[in-house]
């Protein structure tokens, strides 16, 4: 009897405690939600307003100068934004393709075959995974200069073939979905090893390829450090370099409508892709948690 009374008392307090916890949790979540969305909201609003409007005040409602700002931005000959947009798409697209395909290939080489150096090769790739790109940039610039590839887009694309992080994701994925029996079966059917990889393995690991393609596209799209040191000429610039150029110019003399439109051009495409694919991306974050 005694215990029953106690437990019911405990129950009532418990329930109100949960309700309080729930309310507080939702308040925290909504606060963080607003915090995350707010900067982007102002960005979109200000991209639709005229320079004078932006400088005179701040509203929560969009203006009517969206097309005007974009027209000005796209025809601005100092920025050559359309050219930069194309360069960025070209570099990021090629990077995503190369990085996913060749990382899958490397992972398959280690997953499917036994060879003498296998253990060493795997450990080696795991070790180099943590080396930051910045520390080899000096040598990279020297090498690129010697190769005569300075101020071209190629050095931003080709190195993507060796991507330890993507490799690690791929081999983890293969371990979970790719049975050795399938490879054996393909062999018995007389398939050439390279063909087996291209026609049987690639379709099986498509989800992993898709996730990594998105990640590497975005990483390359956002990449700033190395491109800024390699690209000089106007026609070769990618979006982040143009952003930096915008920052180093005399900011107050700029048409702010164009500034916001420019930032929108850099951010919105990724934002839209993300919102469409967020389910897969968030799952990918968890899967690749060791990637760092």
């Amino acid at each position: 009897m005694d215990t029953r009374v106690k437990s019911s008392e405990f129950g009532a307090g418990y329930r109100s405690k949960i309700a309080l916890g729930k309310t507080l949790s939702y308040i925290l979540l909504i606060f963080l939600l607003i915090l995350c969305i707010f900067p982007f909201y102002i960005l979109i609003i200000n991209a639709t307003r005229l320079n004078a409007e932006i400088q005179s005040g701040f509203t929560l409602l969009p203006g009517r100068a969206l097309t005007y700002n974009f027209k000005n931005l796209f025809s601005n000959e100092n920025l050559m934004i359309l050219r930069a947009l194309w360069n960025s798409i070209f570099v990021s697209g090629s990077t995503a393709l190369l990085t996913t395909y060749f990382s899958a290939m490397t992972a398959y080489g280690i997953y499917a075959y036994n060879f003498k150096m296998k253990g060493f090769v795997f450990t080696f790739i795991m070790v180099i995974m943590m080396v930051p790109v910045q520390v080899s940039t000096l040598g990279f610039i020297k090498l690129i200069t010697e190769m005569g590839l300075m101020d071209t887009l190629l050095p931003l694309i080709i190195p993507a073939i060796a991507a330890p992080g993507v490799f690690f994701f791929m081999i983890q994925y293969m371990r979970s979905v790719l049975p050795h029996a399938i490879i054996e079966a393909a062999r018995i059917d007389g398939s050439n090893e390279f063909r087996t990889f291209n026609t049987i393995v690639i379709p099986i690991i498509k989800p992993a390829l898709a996730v990594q393609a998105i990640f590497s596209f975005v990483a390359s799209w956002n990449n700033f450090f190395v491109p800024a040191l390699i690209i000089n000429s106007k026609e070769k610039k990618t979006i982040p370099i143009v952003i930096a150029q915008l920052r180093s110019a005399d900011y107050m003399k700029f048409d702010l409508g164009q500034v916001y439109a420019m930032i929108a051009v850099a951010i919105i495409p990724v934002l839209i892709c993300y919102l469409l694919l967020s389910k897969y991306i968030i799952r990918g974050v968890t899967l690749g948690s060791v990637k760092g």
Partner: protein
Amino acid sequence: MKTQTSYKRRRSVSYAKWGYFFIAPFFIIYFTFQLIPLLSTFYNSFFESYRVGLTQVGPNFVGFQNYVQILTESELPRFAANTFILWIIGFIPQILVAMALALIFTSYRLNIKGQGIFKTVIYMPNLIMASAFSMLFFALFSDQGPVNILLVSTGIIDEPFRFLSNTNATRGLIASMNYLMWFGNTTILLMAGIMGIDQNLFEAAEVDGASSVNVFFRVTLPLLAPILIYVLITSMIGGIQMFDVPQILTNGNGNPDRTSMTMIMYLNKHLASKNYGLAGVVSVLIFIVTGIFSVFVYRSLTKSSREEKKIINKKYKVKRKGGSYGY
């Protein structure tokens, strides 16, 4: 069983060359564009090589002179301290908020609705171009920017606050951006960690009458320790590489008075001005520090499974001693 292995071995020997074929592109590209440049960077750190105007000085071999110069005369130690400060004031709120969110999301008692939307939104800033995000903050917090307009018009302050001329405000802005960009990612990692903990442990603790605070400190936190260490160290490694955000926000100067200049920004300055000797030294030092941290990452990863087992054993033992809820 025995025949199977020997069969396997025989098959694999004949296919070994394919293994090399598949890994060849990776290694050719890696050696050409990463390893050789890395070694060349090390090599260059021992040479005097810089530009004064149009004349190139060196390269002349000078041994460790560049190292001595960087460590005693340059401001690198100060920039290392800056980098650490910028990282830590972003990391503390990041880990606290991420922890709270991970607990909220995984609590079946709170049973939060609309988790998908929340997770989607909090992860979003992570994919945004850091330089554009920084440019956006620069525009928002500039002297005549929307934030100042808002603060003045609502009467909170009398005249525009110059965020970028104030050390704490600039550092705060950089840290907030890093926080916004990474707390969603950390939340997702911690959630995966919490969901990976054996649910029986939580149930057992609850049946034993442990308060939720006790459950958090005695069960969740110790079992999450390896992931927390992983998050901490990978975040530190990321912090060492901090560049895009402060570079754009301060236009590469680390204003005010280079108090927000990071190590990579300093490296970038030397690289851009072709001061290769000193750039080499900075690269080597960053490489060493990152290497030390990486060792801890591997330790924490390999240790995690062992320690988890230990704690689970301890818990079950305690439970068995109690005797009431044995299986």
